[in-house]
């Protein structure tokens, strides 16, 4: 996606800069951006590495297995028809997403999609697959570490102040969208059987 957006943004900036007489500012912006990048990387480095270390410790404790057990009823409710193997990948994807291990969540999620597709003979996505994609478009991360890191690096008085609004927003959106989704996709599947 960035392969198109990135060059187009730059090309438009040059063209619009020339026509609006702001090409000098555009030229300046190029050199400022390099400094911005370096200062952003340096200020992010410490706190990002710290969280990455903490999450690694968390991954190695039994907390992970406990969360998986707690998720079991949820997974049975939405993905009960899927194979045991698919369920394993689904729960791993959800746990990684909750803990903010994005690097782990995506490959595991793709694996879960493939497993669910194996038992799906229809030409379109099955109920489980649709619900799984929908789930992944919703934010379920418990601690938004990256954004807290960025806020801290910019000198916020209280970088963690956003946790509460993030939780409230995520929970409301999650419940509402998953509820609508479960009604919407279930209905479609029934129609096909008729």
């Amino acid at each position: 996606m960035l392969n198109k957006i990135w060059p187009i943004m730059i090309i438009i900036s040059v063209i619009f800069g020339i026509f609006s007489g702001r090409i000098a500012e555009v030229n300046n912006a190029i050199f400022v951006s390099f400094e911005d990048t370096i200062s952003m990387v340096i200020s992010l480095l410490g706190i990002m590495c710290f969280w990455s270390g903490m999450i690694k410790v968390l991954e190695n404790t039994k907390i992970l297995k406990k969360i998986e057990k707690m998720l079991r009823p949820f997974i049975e409710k939405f993905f009960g028809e899927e194979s045991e193997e698919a369920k394993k990948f689904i729960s791993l994807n959800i746990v990684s997403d909750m803990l903010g291990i994005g690097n782990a969540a995506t490959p595991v999620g793709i694996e879960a999609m493939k497993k669910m597709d194996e038992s799906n003979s229809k030409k379109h996505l099955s109920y489980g697959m649709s619900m799984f994609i929908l789930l992944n478009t919703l934010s379920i991360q418990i601690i938004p570490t990256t954004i807290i890191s960025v806020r801290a690096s910019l000198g916020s008085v209280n970088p963690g102040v956003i946790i509460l609004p993030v939780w409230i927003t995520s929970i409301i959106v999650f419940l509402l969208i998953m509820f609508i989704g479960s009604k919407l996709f279930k209905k479609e599947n029934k129609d096909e059987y008729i």
Partner: protein
Amino acid sequence: MSIFESLIIPFLIFSILSMCLLERKKAFDIFSEGVNEGLKTVINLFPTLLALLLAVNMFRACGLINFLSDIFGGVLELFFIPKELTSLVFLEPISGSSSLVIATDLMKTYGVDSLIGLIASTILGATETTIYTIAIYTGVIKKKVPKKLIVLAIIGNFLGIFLSTIICNIMN
């Protein structure tokens, strides 16, 4: 409220490390391993950051962004969303790293603890890169994606942005 918020992260660290100690795991070794992985993540992020900061800075300097937020900002303001957030609202569903760059830029410009800074942070924390996610997960299988799914996901994304704005306004 403030004590509660200040407690969340120290408490999290406390719990993780206590669990680790109770289970007799090598806390320091595991932590170091994770830090190394984090280092790799930041290094992998570097090209994206460099490329996107270049594009965002140039885009802002050419003046088009003011032009665009004047057009679309009016629509967003109907939903109480500040028009300064226009670029974030449009890029957020597509690319996580570009929305991070734009949110950082907003926090620098308007202040990290300002209302706009808070809303931008909350949006980033409470929404996902919806369109990107759908593209990735449907890319591996050759099946038709129901339009309902795409529409519902985008509604969810916008609802997240809307609620972030409302809740930050209430809390501020």
